């Protein structure tokens, strides 16, 4: 049986969900031989493959790069999992939404700068006017709430997906802010 190809990535998030993913601990060994991690901060793979079975994405969509990336992932992925409150609901990254982009950049790059105060114009991807959860820009197949979702919840989600099922009972395992 061929392995399920799995990609993981984070957009505007804290990587806490990935930490929780690693907290699956020894159960990772159980699933390791069933999956092939093809793209992830945890592996050394620079390009997102053309075809991926499952992608687990952490973080909200905050910048033009995030937007470009999640659309690209969606178009190359069969099952897209929004992992954690930032991906599912926007969470902390969206708390900036009541301010304008200019106000934010002023605070970060001018008012609090000790030298060379200026708005970044290259290298750093431009912010979108508002940070949004993934499902506002692409279709999502599985929503896993939690900040971060517990290792048990993540394991349950992956186990269900590996069994060929879309987990339908996730709110029994997790909730926003869990």
């Amino acid at each position, binding site marked *: 049986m061929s392995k399920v190809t799995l990609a993981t990535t984070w957009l505007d998030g804290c990587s806490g969900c990935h930490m929780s993913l690693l907290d699956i601990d020894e159960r990772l060994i159980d699933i390791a031989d069933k999956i092939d991690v093809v793209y992830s901060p945890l592996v050394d793979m620079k390009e997102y493959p053309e075809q991926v079975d499952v992608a687990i994405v952490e973080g909200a969509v905050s910048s033009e790069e995030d937007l470009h990336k999640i659309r690209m992932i969606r178009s190359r992925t069969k099952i897209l999992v*929004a992992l954690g*409150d930032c991906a*599912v*609901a*926007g*969470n*902390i990254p*969206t*708390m900036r*939404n*009541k301010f304008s982009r200019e106000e934010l950049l002023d605070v970060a790059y001018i008012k609090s700068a000790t030298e060379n105060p200026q708005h970044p114009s290259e290298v750093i991807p431009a912010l979108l006017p*508002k940070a*949004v*959860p993934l*499902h*506002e820009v692409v279709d*999502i197949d599985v*929503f896993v*709430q939690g*900040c971060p979702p517990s290792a048990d919840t993540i394991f349950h989600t992956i186990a269900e997906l590996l069994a060929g099922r879309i987990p339908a009972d*996730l*709110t029994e395992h*997790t*909730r*926003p*802010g*869990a």
Partner: protein
Amino acid sequence: MAVVRSRIKTLKIDGQDVGAHEDETILEVARENGIMIPTLCQLDGLSLVGACRLCLVEVVGWRNLVPACTTYVEEGMEVITNSERLQKYRRMIIELLFAEGNHVCAVCVSNGNCELQWKAQKLGMDHVRFTNQNPDRRVDMTHEHFVVDANRCILCTRCVRVCDEIEGAHTWDIFGRGENSTIISDFNLPWGESPTCSSCGKCVNVCPTGALVEKGKAAGEMIKRTEFLAYLTKMREVKK
């Protein structure tokens, strides 16, 4: 022979035969019989407003859904409390609440002890399909002991009612209308300058979310206690 009017009603809730006094609401009878209908604005000991619409139930043969909290039992009525349609509506109402305010649980002092959060989980809300409104409402830390963050308020008016009906101070009320509604203390004074607030903390304890909280709590540390309400109500009834 005189016709005697029965004050006892028999009805069906979710197929279960139940008996009730005519002064009881569907919600009360359901709870007595272990049938849990979700509520948010309702709190035993406070007046009823029927505002949150979570406890809406179907009555067979009735055209409209009715709030269980304000609808009295009737002989022979058949109540359905948990149809698929009701579940869908309730989930949407919770979604709408989440989209309306700042309900970022991760950084809320009430995280884990929040009725809105519990309802979201219980009613199976796995994400919010509506765009968040990102409100910019008042965060007032002028009170010596308490904080109000109107961005986390769901306008259930429990604080308004407990302050008016139990404490007798009527410090809180609602200002504005529609989506601009917000809770205010007195005539929109900073809470710390309120001449009516007795700092009793009842509002904080009946608040279902992290809108009214004690100072000095970190995320997840705020635990609300509503037991006092049942106690006070009971004591006042005894006194009557």
